[in-house]
């Protein structure tokens, strides 16, 4: 934030608006996976850049909270930096990059590698809250399909993927069934992250500002990724470890390092990666300096 700010309420939104959003959140928590329409406000960043997540965070954040903001898993991507500095300016709360220190984590496209704990809230920025939207463009119609729990369209889509490609060809924003009732878009997290939503001890809130919808998954709620008995849900996996910290079983970014097709794979979760490196350094200095090999994977 540069330049002087004109007077704004704490958290930017006025108290009436926060109350309206909190009511929508309560309803969302009461009906897991159900999209609650809310009177989405403009916020000082463009629509589609996390305005839903920003409104949810602005409505729940208090003085004692510690905020972490990530985009693509990283704390240092430009939009994460921008949103974090926005909240630092309009709320004055403490911010962090450490997943385990944060009470509120606002995210775009990832769930942190560090498992979330009870008492934490993760706020997802959602571009398209309607999992059926690309199968049925009309809101009036998709509302009816949800009311009737008529999700045949989605199963047909997944079946067609299998018939055409031999696999379910959805790799992110992979549809989930929440508490056995509502089909829900998990936001464009990679399907790799989907299992983390299931029975998470953290409260999961979803804000879609442009589409004016809020939904939620309360702690310890069933979140089942769709699949078939013979073609079950398959989260993506990486066969290699991170080239920096050596972690395995984490989501990796492919970083192109030359113009001849060379690439390295590194953690998408920057906090996880930094701490893994720090831990490795600690154990190394603690022990005898046995061979200063870098943990470069084969």
């Amino acid at each position: 934030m540069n330049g002087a700010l004109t007077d704004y309420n704490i958290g930017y939104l006025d108290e009436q608006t926060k109350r309206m959003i909190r009511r929508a959140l309560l309803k969302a928590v009461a009906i897991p996976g159900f999209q609650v329409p809310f009177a989405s406000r403009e916020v000082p960043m463009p629509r589609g850049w996390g305005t839903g997540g920003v409104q949810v965070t602005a409505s729940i954040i208090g003085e004692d909270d510690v905020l972490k903001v990530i985009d693509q898993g990283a704390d240092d991507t430009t939009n994460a930096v921008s949103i974090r500095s926005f909240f630092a300016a309009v709320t004055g709360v403490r911010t962090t990059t450490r997943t385990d220190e944060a009470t509120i984590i606002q995210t775009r496209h990832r769930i942190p590698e560090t498992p979330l704990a009870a008492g934490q809230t993760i706020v997802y920025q959602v571009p398209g809250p309607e999992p059926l939207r690309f199968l049925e463009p009309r809101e009036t119609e998709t509302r009816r399909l949800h009311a009737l729990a008529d999700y045949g369209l989605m199963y047909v889509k997944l079946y067609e993927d299998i018939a055409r490609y031999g696999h379910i060809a959805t790799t992110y924003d992979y549809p989930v069934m929440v508490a056995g009732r509502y089909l829900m878009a998990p936001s464009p997290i990679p399907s790799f992250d989907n299992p983390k939503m299931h029975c998470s001890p953290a409260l999961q809130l979803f804000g879609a500002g442009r589409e004016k919808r809020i939904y939620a998954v309360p702690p310890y709620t069933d979140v089942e990724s769709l699949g078939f008995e013979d073609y079950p849900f398959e989260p993506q996996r990486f066969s290699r470890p991170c080239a920096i910290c050596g972690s395995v079983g984490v989501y990796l970014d492919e970083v192109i390092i030359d113009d001849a097709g060379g690439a390295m794979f590194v953690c998408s979760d920057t906090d996880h990666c930094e701490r893994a490196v720090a831990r490795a350094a600690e154990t190394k200095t603690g022990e005898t300096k046995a061979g200063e090999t870098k943990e470069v994977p084969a």
Partner: protein
Amino acid sequence: MYVAVKGGERAIANAHALLAKEGRGDPRLPRIGPDAVAGQLGVLVARVMTEGSLYDPDLAARAILQAQGDVLEAITLVRSYRTTLPRFGYTLPVDTSGLPPQRRISATFKDLPGGQQLGATFDYTHRLFAERDTAGPRADSPAGPPPAMPRVTDLLGTASLLEPDNAPGAGDPEPADLTREPTVFPMTRAERLQALARGDEGFLLGLGYSTQRGFGSTHPFAGEIRVGEVEVEVAAPELGFAVPLGRIEITECQMINQFKGNADTPAQFTRGYGLAFGRAERKAMSMSLVDRALRAEDFGERIVAPAQDEEFVISHSDSVPAAGFVEHLKLPHHVDFQAELGLVRRLRGEFDERAAAGGAVSDNTGPDNTGPDNTGPDNTGPAGEGSAGELMLAEAGA
């Protein structure tokens, strides 16, 4: 290199400092003040106020300057400020028949009570670059109070040739406010008109134009267009009378459309309505065309064109979400792209395996593809092969 997208606070601060410098232009030239913008770019200011849903010429002028002339950016600025303002209540309906028009024309009558008044208009100007005298017209207008100018729709309405302002028995329902309440389709006409008033002028212009070209035709006539200042009043129940808040300049368009009628009801013209802040004729006219097109269901018309489709029009007319979402593609998406990349590599790997096993892929087994060229060093260089093999996804359950 992609990591360049990962930037710290310093990169952002520097980018904004550069932006401010670009916006200043040549420092030897005087800076444009908001007063100059408000006074000399009135039409632009009107657009920012209308689509920003806030009547404040000074703030709109500031927004235009801060946005360096990017209208949609200026509108977003105004909206983001407006949304934090408390709402105290509704004004009384503005009485546009009472406004002393600066401009008032009707295309449906050669002359009418109050007369035609051209006012300040680009119509009939020759679009040639020229410096014009800015002293204003010769003051030869007759003294005395301006003549009454009843609305054309009221004149026609008295003879029931035109559908009335409100359907019989409509009462006076509480107007909705789509900035404060969730929007759910189908909308009331009042909500739709709010959405259209905030809607992007270019989008509504295109849709209005499409109805004229046959995509949901409504046979429109510009019944009346008027521009002028109206008094804004708010009811104060404890005082027992209306309190004037001030005057705002508006443009109103009453479109008269295709008549309806059948054996049971006499034929009657239908209407579309447009209203915008300031001088904004194109916007008001486009809005009235789209308003009428969206009323298709009211008149039992078949919905066949985009302009008649409420969900399509209303969901996409607002420039703030539209611009934001299109431009959000600039944000990093490498996590999702990585997931797609993994799948495409896997599918290609399986394809190659099938081909190698002499599967159904016959096109690739021709002599051209199996020749020695294909296995030459150029194609199997370590760089190329290495990266393609790195991210094979593990098999299911592995």
